[in-house]
């Protein structure tokens, strides 16, 4: 029996998005693509990193389908992580 139905899932799409975003963040880290200096690039890298974390949580860890209290806890973690990392990067 083909395994296609097993791998045809939103998590597979999430995997492809994560790979693409990894390449994007690497590009931002390796080159000053925007021409605005390292600060802008670094803030974008942090935002994409937290977005990737959220994708892993929702689609790999299946928190998308978890009870709302658990999903909200994770969403709260992502928001707090983004705020703390951004503030510490800018003012730490």
């Amino acid at each position, binding site marked *: 029996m083909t395994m296609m139905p*097993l791998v045809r899932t939103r998590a597979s799409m999430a*995997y492809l998005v994560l790979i693409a975003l990894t390449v994007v963040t690497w590009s931002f*880290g390796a080159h000053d693509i925007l021409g605005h200096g390292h600060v802008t690039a670094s803030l974008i890298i942090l935002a994409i990193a937290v977005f990737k974390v959220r994708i*892993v*949580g929702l689609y*790999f*860890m299946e928190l998308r*389908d978890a009870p709302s209290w*658990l999903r909200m806890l994770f969403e709260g973690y992502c928001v707090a992580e983004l705020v703390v990392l951004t503030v510490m990067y800018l003012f730490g």
Partner: protein
Amino acid sequence: MVTRNAAAHPVLGSGESISARVRHVPGEPGLWIFLFGDLFIFSVLFTAYLNERGNNADEFAAAQGHLERTTGIINTFVLLTSSILVVFATRAVRDERWRHHSSGLFVAGAAVGACFVAIKGVEYHGMISAGLTPSVGNFYMWYFVLTGIHLAHVILGLLVLMCLSRLARNAASSATRIAIVEGGACFWHVVDLLWILIFSLIFLVR
């Protein structure tokens, strides 16, 4: 998808309609205290790292230039690929049609994950050979602390995946067994998730 007994679940792999989904906590609820605790501890470490970086910006920027970003991005691909294999393995264990693939998928996930350890070993060897040790400066101290603690998580996660592969060999499946598999898989995904942040902070953010 998230039914505990997907044998009675007609939609596995055919889209994930809301009506067919049963909301549940992946793994055992108590596990999430440990997982969020782990995430919190790493968040404290990240905060301390950025604070130290702010106090020694020039030193950190110069030292960061000696890191090999290519190994960092390869290791990111490695962990993401391992994670998706573990996702497939977890889906397989829920459905008797695919359960016989589950153990092999966990082994494949662990094998790919083991590449992370090998690549990190090569990276450490190269840095230490070049004299870039924790005693050289604050950046390298933080580099080895953050990546070292994470590496310990990877090794523990690989052991968990091997245990799950043994567990998945059993043809029968129970709610408890599925919960254990889900919990172990979630730990491995946390390992992946933490590396995404470490890679960005240590290798990319300048």
